[in-house]
């Protein structure tokens, strides 16, 4: 008698089905290594029809399906289901069409983010969302997570830069969502699908919007003796009407780690540095660089540097871009958080993170998309000393703090399995039930990436979290900072 999963061979080539423990092991986790699970089967189809058959098969036999792009996700979104099929979309790598006049590219789901910009570079175009993982992550994964990047303050997230997706429902039906026009009939399902973490359907094809490469790009690096000054400089840059292409902040711990790694001459004694990138026409960049310079000086920057050339500009960025691996070098393990807060609370939140860090006895390095309030505290720990649990608990506290000041538990990495508990803090039970209701409209049998992204009420009850709404009642003592 063949097992149920062996029947996958009926419509997939031999090498597209992995069943042995050994063979499925490489798929047991995504970028968040602390969660691991072996799926019952891994399938690696090559054609849309094969994916369709996989889905119909799973639908008929009530088998959970977890889609996987490159597996760079940082919230356990692509963590396999023990009794389910892991659907790898790695083979869908074709760029189907580039239209330089309409400035669009139509690509298969497994195409890597950076490949799109490379493929269209000859036309002077690029795809704007640039997650730091862009050389590895797939466009399908980007849609599923609504991925952002350093430039999303000015150019938006994935949701702002896609026009149309082709999706397979759990029943294996192919639907087109969005269009090649600026909008489409019916509800905005394109927005609903973006960031839905593989719970509503499997994205097979994406049409992205392309932008012309800016004529000029310049970056200012400013060092500050206090995080508060850096934070108020950020607020003023925005308040005077400048929308930088990128506006990033690093605290002292992150600066030191980055400098030790890339050695580009970051000021290692600074409490914080700001990297402010401006792009556009040469004239406009020149004007805004002077404005930014004046603002950071006004806020007592201890040092201001301007990149003299492209090489130097990339050097300025090198430390920021390498911040995660840099922290990886100085600590056996690190845990990356992803909360977003209203910018104005930055100094207070950093202060509070510092206190939590001392309380838990674990160091925290902060890199921060300062322009849009997206924090990435990196918690340093040593799993071999049994510190994982503490690190997770500290991370949870940081996220709850983000909610308390009117922010959110995830800006771009998604909820996955990692932030299920904190979702209970951010949303009340009626809201969570409404999310489950949305899921039921697309996947009533709950087969697509089950137990991810939205916690059950039961889980929230067990977690025992007090739901806190948009800072309305929580942490009144925080105001004192």
């Amino acid at each position, binding site marked *: 008698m063949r097992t149920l999963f062996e029947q996958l061979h009926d419509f997939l080539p031999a090498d597209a089905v992995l069943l042995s423990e050994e063979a499925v092991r490489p798929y047991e986790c995504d970028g968040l290594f602390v969660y691991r699970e072996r799926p019952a089967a891994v399938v690696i189809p090559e054609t849309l029809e094969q994916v369709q058959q996989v889905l119909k098969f799973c639908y008929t036999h009530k088998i959970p399906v977890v889609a996987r792009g490159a597996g760079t996700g940082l919230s356990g979104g692509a963590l396999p289901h023990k009794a389910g099929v892991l659907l790898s979309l790695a083979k869908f790598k074709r760029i189907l069409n580039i239209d330089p006049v309409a400035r669009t590219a139509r690509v298969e789901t497994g195409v890597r983010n950076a490949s799109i910009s490379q493929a269209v570079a000859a036309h002077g175009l690029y795809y704007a969302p640039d997650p730091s993982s862009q050389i590895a992550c797939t466009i399908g994964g980007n849609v599923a997570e609504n991925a952002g990047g350093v430039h999303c303050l000015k150019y938006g997230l994935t949701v702002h830069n896609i026009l149309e997706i082709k999706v397979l429902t759990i029943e294996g039906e192919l639907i087109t969502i969005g*269009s090649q026009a600026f*909008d489409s009939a019916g509800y905005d399902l394109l927005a609903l699908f973006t960031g839905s973490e593989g719970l509503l359907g499997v994205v097979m094809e994406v049409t992205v919007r392309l932008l012309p490469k800016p004529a000029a790009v310049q970056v200012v690096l400013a060092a500050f003796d206090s995080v508060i000054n850096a934070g108020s400089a950020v607020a003023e840059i925005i308040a005077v009407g400048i929308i930088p292409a990128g506006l990033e902040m690093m605290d002292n711990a992150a600066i030191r780690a980055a400098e030790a790694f890339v050695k580009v001459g970051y000021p290692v004694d600074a409490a914080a540095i700001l990297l402010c990138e401006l792009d556009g026409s040469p004239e*406009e960049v020149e004007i805004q660089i002077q404005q930014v310079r004046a603002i950071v000086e006004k806020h007592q920057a201890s040092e201001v540097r301007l990149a003299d050339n492209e090489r130097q500009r990339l050097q300025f960025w090198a430390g920021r871009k390498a911040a995660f691996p840099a922290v990886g070098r100085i600590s056996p393990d690190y845990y990356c958080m992803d909360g977003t807060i*209203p910018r104005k609370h930055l100094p207070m939140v950093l202060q509070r993170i510092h206190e939590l860090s001392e309380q838990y006895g674990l160091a925290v390095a902060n890199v921060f998309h300062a322009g849009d309030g997206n924090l990435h505290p990196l918690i340093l720990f040593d799993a071999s000393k049994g510190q994982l649990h503490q690190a997770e608990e500290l991370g949870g506290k940081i996220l709850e703090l983000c909610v308390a000041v*009117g922010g*959110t538990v995830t800006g771009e990495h998604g909820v996955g399995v990692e932030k299920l508990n904190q979702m209970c803090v951010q949303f009340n039970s009626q809201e969570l039930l*409404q999310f489950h209701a*949305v899921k039921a409209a697309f996947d009533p049998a709950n087969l697509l990436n089950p137990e991810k992204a939205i916690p059950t009420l039961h889980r929230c009850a067990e977690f025992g979290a007090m739901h806190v709404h*948009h800072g309305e009642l929580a942490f009144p003592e925080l105001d004192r900072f």
Partner: protein
Amino acid sequence: MSDTDIALSLQSEVQAAIAEKIPLRIQGGGSKAFYGRTSQGKCLAVAPHCGIIDYEPSELVITARAGTPLKTINAQLAAQGQHLAFEPPHFGSTATLGGTIACGFSGSSRPYLGAARDFVLGVKCITGKGEMLHFGGQVMKNVAGYDVSRLMVGALGSLGVLLEISCRVLPMPVQQVSLRLPVDNEAQALQQLTHWNTQCLPLTASCFDGEAVWLRLAGVEISQARQKVLAELVSQEIASAFWENLREQQLGFFTSTQTPLWRLSVPPTAPSLNLGKSIIEWGGGLRWVYSDLPAEQIRAAVEKIGGHATLFRGGDRTAEVFHPLPPVLRKLHERLRQQFDPDNILNPSHFSTHW
């Protein structure tokens, strides 16, 4: 108008309607009553629920109650040198923020700066289950839970009564000029629009008004860009009147005829459709046409090039006014509506004959 919070009484009205199975017709300022399918029901007046709740210019976010007049919001933002960059049309002085977002209307800047849905960050709403729920928030990056706030944009109230909306705002441009290039016909206009779309210009609006192509450039320093276009510079006064009249559909084209007005949303590079005299916006992507042709004929022509057609004003408003969806998508829409409004209380049949 003074700020008032009537969220709780709106919620009890919805709950009462659910209990008694009485459909509700959600009304803001009534300025867009012409839009969508005719919907019967007891009026649920959202306009009194008004006031700006939170606005800090350096956060680039405004949060206001749904009944807040659009002009109040625009005035507050303008005082700080900011604006709703999707330039929503008002279609009347009573327009509210809620109605604008429920209709999902965006103005001339849409292809260049984004649509209404791109700027919505969060909503508070009452669903057809009578529950008052928050989705999204006040921050730009937020992927916690499904993006229900953006789903509400353009849903015509059929998924929930909007109570509060948080929108991202942008600084107004430092410099702005409008240019006018006379053309012989629509085909030539489309060529021009496509050409300028690919020229790395800081465009924020474009239009063919039947006689000429209009381009609006804006930015911090645009004199160099302006040199690239050899065209007549239009005075600020005439230009701002033109863009406003275009947005509010007050140009002669829009006011002189009684036949149904169709809104055709098409891939911008699509050729001329020859369905009648038209005004073109969005670099070719939005075409307004007055036409008595049968709906099927218009829809077939637009569908062939990958677009969709909306019966925007006039015509038979008891038939489908939005482009019919393919069967699977329609089924998903019906199910989604069911999950938000199981008793069909909120603006029933306003969107479609089916839901």
